[in-house]
C-alpha cells in the first residue's frame, strides 16, 4: 500500500522515513550523486543544499545495537586492531565500513555483511565531522577518509571554557563553515547553492521547533510522553533535520501527545501508573533498551527528562552564519562544567523529576566525565537523589541487568521516602 503521510501515525512515519533515507542514499549512488557520512551533530545544511545524500554512522550503530547485532561489527573492528577502549559507535561503524569496503574491493558480500541485521547503507563519497561533541569524531572520520581515500570535511569547534560563547569563537566557526562550502564546491565541481542553503536552514529550524515541542509534553504531570520514545524518534532529528521528514513526524507526534493528554492517557496508560518521574542522563543503552526501560517501568518510573535529546536544540537565525555557529557550538557537552550543570538542573526542573539515573557510559568519556559533578550539583540545588550505573551504548559487554535493577529499585525507594 502507498504510504500516506496524512493518515500515517508518527510511529509509521518514523519507520518509513528512516528506511526512505537509506533508499535515497542508494538511489543517489545509482544516479552518480554523492553520499556523505556525517557525525550526528555536524551541520548537514551545506551538504543537503548541494543535494548530497546523508548517512549517519552513530544512528546506524545505535540501530545495530538495538537490533542486537553490534557485537559482530565490533569484532570486525577489533580484528582490525581497534582497541576496546574506543567509543563503541566508532568501533561498530569502522567494523561496518570494513565489511562494505571488502565488498567493494572483491565484489562479494562477506557472510557477516550478508547476514547482518544492521541496515544496509552505501559507502560514502565524502565524510563530514564536527568536534562539538567529542574528539573521537575527528580521528574516527579521518580514519574513514583515509581507509576509503575520500575527502573529509572537518568543522572545528573550540570548547567553550566560559559561557556565553565568545565572539571570536563564532567568527572562527563561521570561517570553518566558509571553508566547508569551498571544499564542497571543489568536491562537487559546482557553485554552492546559497538559495537552497537558506531554505535548508529554515527547514532545520522547523524541525528543531517540533522536536523541542515534543519534549515539552514530558513537562506535564502526569506525562503523556514516555521519554524513552525520544530515544527512537531521535533518529530523525539526527538524520533528517534538514528535510521535512523530521518536521512531519514530530508535528504528528506532538498532535498525538496532545490528544493522548486530552483523553487522559499517559506514558504508562492510566494516570496512577506514573509513580515516579526520573531524568536520564546519557545515551541510551541500545543493546539493552528493553531491559533498561522495563527496569524503570516495573517500578512505575517514567522518564520525563533527558539532556541528550536536547543536544539537537539547534536554534539559529537562517542566513546568519555566526548565529548558526553559536547553535552548533553551545551544545551542552561542549561547554564548561558550571554551564553544563546549570543546563542539566534546568532539564530536571522542567521535567519535574524526583530522581536522576546517570548512565556511566564506558564508550563516551565526554558524556560520562562530568556525570558525578552534575548529579551532585542537582542534588544540592534541588534535593533530588541520584544513582549511576555502568553501561555502554552499543558494546553489550559492559551492562549488567541485575546491577541496574538493584540501583533503579533503590532509587525508587529513595524517591518514595522523599514523598
Amino acid at each position, binding site marked *: 500500500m502507498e504510504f500516506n503521510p496524512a493518515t500515517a501515525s508518527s510511529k509509521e512515519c518514523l519507520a518509513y522515513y528512516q528506511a526512505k533515507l537509506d533508499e535515497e542514499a542508494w538511489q543517489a549512488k545509482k544516479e552518480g550523486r554523492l553520499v556523505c557520512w556525517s557525525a550526528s551533530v555536524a551541520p548537514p545544511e551545506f551538504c543537503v543544499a548541494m543535494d548530497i545524500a546523508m548517512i549517519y554512522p552513530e544512528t546506524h550503530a545505535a540501530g545495530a545495537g538495538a537490533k542486537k547485532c553490534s557485537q559482530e561489527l565490533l569484532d570486525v573492528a577489533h580484528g582490525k586492531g581497534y582497541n576496546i577502549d574506543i567509543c563503541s559507535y566508532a568501533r561498530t561503524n569502522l567494523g561496518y565500513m570494513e565489511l562494505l569496503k571488502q565488498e567493494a574491493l572483491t565484489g562479494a558480500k562477506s557472510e557477516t555483511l550478508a547476514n547482518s541485521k544492521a541496515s544496509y547503507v552505501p559507502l560514502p563519497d565524502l565524510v563530514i565531522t564536527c568536534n562539538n561533541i567529542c574528539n573521537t569524531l575527528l580521528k574516527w572520520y579521518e580514519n574513514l577518509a583515509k581507509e576509503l581515500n575520500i575527502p573529509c570535511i572537518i568543522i572545528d569547534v573550540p570548547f567553550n571554557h566560559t559561557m556565553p560563547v565568545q565572539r571570536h569563537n563564532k567568527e572562527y566557526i563561521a570561517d570553518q563553515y566558509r571553508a566547508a562550502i569551498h571544499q564542497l564546491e571543489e568536491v562537487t565541481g559546482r557553485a554552492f547553492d546559497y538559495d537552497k542553503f537558506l531554505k535548508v536552514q529554515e527547514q532545520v529550524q522547523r524541525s528543531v521547533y517540533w522536536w523541542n515541542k515534543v519534549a515539552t509534553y514530558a513537562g506535564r504531570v502526569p506525562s503523556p510522553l514516555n521519554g524513552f520514545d525520544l530515544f527512537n524518534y531521535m533518529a530523525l532529528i539526527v538524520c533528517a533535520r534538514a528535510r521535512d521528514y523530521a518536521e512531519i513526524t514530530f508535528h504528528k507526534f506532538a498532535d498525538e501527545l496532545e490528544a493522548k493528554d486530552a483523553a487522559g492517557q499517559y506514558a504508562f496508560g492510566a494516570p496512577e501508573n506514573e509513580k515516579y518521574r526520573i531524568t536520564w542522563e546519557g545515551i541510551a543503552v541500545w543493546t539493552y533498551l528493553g531491559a533498561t526501560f522495563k527496569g524503570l517501568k516495573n517500578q512505575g518510573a517514567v522518564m520525563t527528562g533527558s539532556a541528550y535529546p536536547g543536544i539537537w536544540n539547534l536554534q539559529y537565525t537562517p542566513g546568519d552564519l555566526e548565529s548558526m555557529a553559536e547553535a552548533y557550538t553551545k551544545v551542552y557537552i561542549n561547554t564548561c562544567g558550571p554551564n553544563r550543570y546549570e543546563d542539566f538542573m534546568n532539564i530536571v526542573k522542567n521535567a519535574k523529576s524526583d530522581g536522576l539515573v546517570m548512565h556511566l557510559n564506558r564508550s563516551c568519556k565526554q558524556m560520562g566525565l562530568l556525570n558525578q559533578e552534575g548529579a551532585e550539583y542537582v542534588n544540592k540545588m534541588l534535593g533530588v537523589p541520584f*544513582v*549511576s*550505573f*555502568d553501561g555502554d551504548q552499543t558494546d553489550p559487554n*559492559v551492562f*549488567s541487568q541485575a546491577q541496574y535493577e*538493584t540501583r533503579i529499585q*533503590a532509587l525508587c*525507594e529513595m524517591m518514595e*521516602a522523599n514523598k
Partner: protein
Amino acid sequence: MVYTLGIDIGSSSSKALILADGKDIVSSAAIQVGTGTSGPGRVMEEVFRDTGLSLEDIAFTVATGYGRFSVKEADKQISEITCHAKGIFHLIPGARTIIDIGGQDAKAIRLGDNGNILQFYMNDKCAAGTGRFLDVMSRVLEIPLDNMGDAHFKATEWAAVSSTCTVFAESEVISQLSNGVPRENIVAGVHKSVATKTCALVRRCGELQQEVVMCGGVAKNPGAVDAMEKALGAKITVAPNPQITGALGAALLAWEAYQKQQ
C-alpha cells in the same frame, strides 16, 4: 504476636530472620551458599527450626538481595540498599555511613538523621574488592576464611597486592608465596586491596560521616575491618551479627508493610 520474615538471598549466602511485633528477633539463620543453590531452601528450614512456627504464621515476608526475585514466599521485594540501611539504623541509630561488603558487591551508603538514604555507591561489573576476592585468596593461601583475621594481625608488614583483576591478583599472590613472603603479610595485603577499593566508594559519598558501621559477610573478618579502618582513617563499628542485617531490615520493612495493610 505478629511475625514477619525477612529473607536476604545474596550471591554468596542465604540469610533469613523472623521478627515478632517488629522488634524482637525470634530466630535468624545464615547458610553460606547463595542464589541458585540449595541455600534459599535450607535457610528457610533453618530459620523456622525450634521456633514452633511455620510459614502460615508469618504475616508478611520481604525478600532482598541479588536473588530477591526468585523468592516465591515473598510478598514484596525491596533492594538490599534499603534493607541494610533499615537494619543497621535499627541496631545502631548513630550510624551515618554504612559499608556492606558481600560476595560480589561492595556498597557504601550515607544516611541522614532519620535513617533515610542520602546517597549510595556500589561497585559495578567487576567483583574485585568483594568477598569473592577474599574467598579466592583464602583458598590460594590455604587459610580458612575464619582464620584470615588472626593471620592478618600477625603480619609484620603488609605485602603489596596491586592487581585489580582477581585472576591476576591470584598469580601475584602465588608468586609472592614462592618468593617466600610470609603468608600473614600477604593476608594483610589482600585485606588492604579490598579496603582500598571499598574506601573509594565511601569517599564518593562525600565527607565521611560518623558513626561508620560495617556489615555483610566480610565484616565477620576482623582483618578486613582493620584494613578498612586504616584506609578510611576512622573507627568502624561492626554491626552485631553483620551478615544478617539485610534480612533484619527486610523483616522490619515487612512489619511496616503489614501495619500499613491493617
